[in-house]
C-alpha cells in the first residue's frame, strides 16, 4: 500500500521497469492544460506544456512564438487584429 499522501488522484503514476525486473511506480504532479488563444480558444502551438519549475528554466524564445502577441493569440487571430489596425 502506498503512503497516504501518494494515494491522491492529483498525482500522476508512472510505471517504470526497474533493472531488477519489477515495476516501480513513480509519482509526479500532473501537467497543466495546454495554452489557448484568447481570441478563438484554439490550442496554441509552439508553447511547451510543462510545470512552472521547468518553464522557469527555459529560455524566453522556447516558451512562445517570436511575433507580436506570440503566446497570447493564435496566428490567425493576430493577423485579423493587424488587418483591423491597418483599416483604421
Amino acid at each position: 500500500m502506498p503512503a497516504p499522501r501518494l494515494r491522491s488522484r492529483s498525482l500522476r503514476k508512472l510505471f517504470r521497469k526497474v533493472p531488477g525486473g519489477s515495476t516501480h511506480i513513480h509519482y509526479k504532479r500532473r501537467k497543466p492544460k495546454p495554452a489557448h488563444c484568447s481570441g478563438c480558444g484554439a490550442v496554441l502551438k509552439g508553447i511547451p506544456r510543462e510545470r512552472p519549475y521547468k518553464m522557469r528554466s527555459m529560455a524566453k524564445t522556447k516558451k512562445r512564438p517570436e511575433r507580436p502577441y506570440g503566446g497570447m493569440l493564435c496566428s490567425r487571430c493576430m493577423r485579423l487584429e493587424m488587418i483591423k489596425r491597418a483599416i483604421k
Partner: protein
Amino acid sequence: MIDIGRIVIKIAGRDAGKKAVIIDVLDNNYVLLDGETRRRKCNILHVEPLEQKIDIKKNAPHDEVSKALKELGIGTRETKPKPKTQKPKAKRKTPEQIRSQKEEKKKLRDIFRPKKKEEKPEAKAVTLEEKAGLVEEKKDEHKHEHKPDKKETKPKSEKPKKTPKNEEKKE
C-alpha cells in the same frame, strides 16, 4: 493595389504590425519591402496594402526609401554593419626568437628528464642487487625442486617409447 511605392502593413511573422514600402514586385506572389521591417522579400498574403503611396523608383536604395518615409513619419530599420574586427595576424618569428624558444624548451627538458634518469637507476640498482641475490637463490631452489619432477615424469613416459621406435626404423 500592390504596386511599386505602395505603403503596406506586415500582417504575419515577427515584423507583424510594421509599415513598409513596396520597392519591387518580383512575382505574382512576392514583393520586395523596405521600411520599418528589414529589406526583404515577402509574400503578398502576409501584407495588407494601405491607401498611401509614394513616388519611388524600382529597386530604390535604402537611403532614398528612408528619406521618403521620414516625410510620412515612418521610421526605418537601420542596421549598422558590424565593425570589422581585424584578426591578429600570425607574425613570422625571427631566427633569434626561434633560438630562444628552443633554449627554453631545452631548459624544461633538463628540468624534467635528468631527475627521472637519476632516480630510476638508483632505485633499480638497489632493488636489482637485492633481488638478484634473492632471485638467483629462489631460482636455484625452484630449479632443484622442479627439475627432478620433470625428469622423473617426462623421460619415463616419452623417451623410452620414442627411442626404440626410431632405432627400429633407422635400422
